């Protein structure tokens, strides 16, 4: 009674073909990721060590480690987070808790989306024009961190907004009903229950900021700067600094005769830093989902 007609059989064949095709496409996206990472680690293995991370480049960056660049990236990332996090969180609170559905809110939302889509090199031009030249900060860690902060602001706004929106409306209404003010409601109920979601956003910001090159190229990062090995406080706020991403760019294009393993190892350190931070954010997200309070 339910016999397959040739027509149905042909349709099912199309279905199987389509499915396999899509699977194949997905696999083709994943494969380069795996292959490239493996290949890079293989190429980097001769120099990859803790010593590589903790020592400074020598012989015109043709030997030695990456400590100044690693430390510089750390400085830039943490400082940009310190600038972007409060502004971004408050912007998200505004959008999710205060904003009415009017033209202003729509404009802000549009601006957030656009800010996320501005090319990084345009952010670099902005940072140069606004912070380095107009504000007179000069090329420095501060100017570069400000540029990175503006660039990563949408990441924080979007993820914070999502985690705020996940707090049920009824909680807010319950608080308003007992005479709590808006801010008391936000502080007492909304923020404590979305803070872990916000954290995910912060971590994503860190991963994004750590990998950026263009925005810091003209605002604060330099090819080479000598600092003391192992010194955690080697850079001042208004100093220029080295950065991992910039260092990778420098030794793979600007300096001749660099042994091949060196840029590979730098790339691996940068990549694994960024991916580890990203994995942390994913892990946190899974953890939050597993222990919801309501």
């Amino acid at each position: 009674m339910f016999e397959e007609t040739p027509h149905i059989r042909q349709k099912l064949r199309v279905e199987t073909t389509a499915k396999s095709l899509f699977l194949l496409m997905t696999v083709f996206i994943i494969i380069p990721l795996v292959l490239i990472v493996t290949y890079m680690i293989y190429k980097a293995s001769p120099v990859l060590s803790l010593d590589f991370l903790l020592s400074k480049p020598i012989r015109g960056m043709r030997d030695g480690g990456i400590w100044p660049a690693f430390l510089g990236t750390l400085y830039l990332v943490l400082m940009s987070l310190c600038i972007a996090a409060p502004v971004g969180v408050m912007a998200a609170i505004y959008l999710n808790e205060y904003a009415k559905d009017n033209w202003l809110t729509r404009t802000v939302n549009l601006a957030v989306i656009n800010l996320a889509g501005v090319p990084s090199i345009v952010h670099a031009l902005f940072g140069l024009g606004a912070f380095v030249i107009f504000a007179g900060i000069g090329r420095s860690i501060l100017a570069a961190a400000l540029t990175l902060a503006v660039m990563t602001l949408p990441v924080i706004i979007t993820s914070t907004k999502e985690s705020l929106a996940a707090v049920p409306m009824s909680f807010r209404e319950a608080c308003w009903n007992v005479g709590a003010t808006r801010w008391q409601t936000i502080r007492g109920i909304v923020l404590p229950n979305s803070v872990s979601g916000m954290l995910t956003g912060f971590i994503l910001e860190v991963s994004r900021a750590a990998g950026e090159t263009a925005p810091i190229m003209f605002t604060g990062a330099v090819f080479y700067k000598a600092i003391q090995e192992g010194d955690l406080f080697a850079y001042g706020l208004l100093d220029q600094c080295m950065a991992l991403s910039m260092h990778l760019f420098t030794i793979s294009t600007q300096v001749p005769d660099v042994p091949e393993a060196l840029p590979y190892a730098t790339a691996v350190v940068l990549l694994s830093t960024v991916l580890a931070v990203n994995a942390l954010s994913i892990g946190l997200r899974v953890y939050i989902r597993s222990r919801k309070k309501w």
Partner: protein
Amino acid sequence: MVAEKPKIQINGLAVSYGTKPALKGLSLDIHDHEILGIIGPAQSGKTTLLKVINRTIDYISSAKVQGTVTFEGESVLETKDVHSLRRKIGMVSPLPVGLPLSIYDNVAFAPRAAGIRDRKKLDPLVERCLQQAALWDEVKDRLSSLGTKLSGGQQQRLTIARALSHEPEVLCLDEFSIAIDPVTTMRIEDVLKELKEHMTIVLVTNLVQQARRLADRTAFIWNGDLIELDDTDVIFSDAAKDQRTKDYVNGVFG
């Protein structure tokens, strides 16, 4: 019927969400120390009425409110201090809302928001509210566990305890029994009868018989209009003036 100065006076109240009207020029008085039952089909504007009384309608940006509402002679719609107003009115929502805080903190939330931080004052207050809401005996040993982990019926009583924590003069309940079992409903109904000694109660309900059991007077609201308001005995008898009221309480529609 006691001839008293009304606690809450509502005059020509019209509310619309965008272009959709929710209340169309409704007027009614709420007396001191009575239980006023408000019945009517879904979407007839009952919840909107409560939201206007405690001004949480402010948070719905599309809502437009016209008319006057006074609380003890003071204008509700024009008052600057909405937070104090809301503390005079306890509000219990249809679905139980345990805040993701401990049971203790749930009840202490409002007093704390009002600035009471002294544990010596909070402890007896929390105990009294939980007792009034008939929840104390069940939770007194685990006040620090999460309010959201209680059962639905318990959470609803927690919600009532929280609404009592700021010592309101009027307690509004919005279809409080919608998500809880009949036994718990009966317990809460007993609680309400006792609370009547201390405060005015506005009971919005989808259960016609609940209004009959509890209310001193009952208002029938339909489609944003007040159809009839009278003593409960009258509404539930042939003496009801409007045919629609008779039909609704007899289950012909709604």
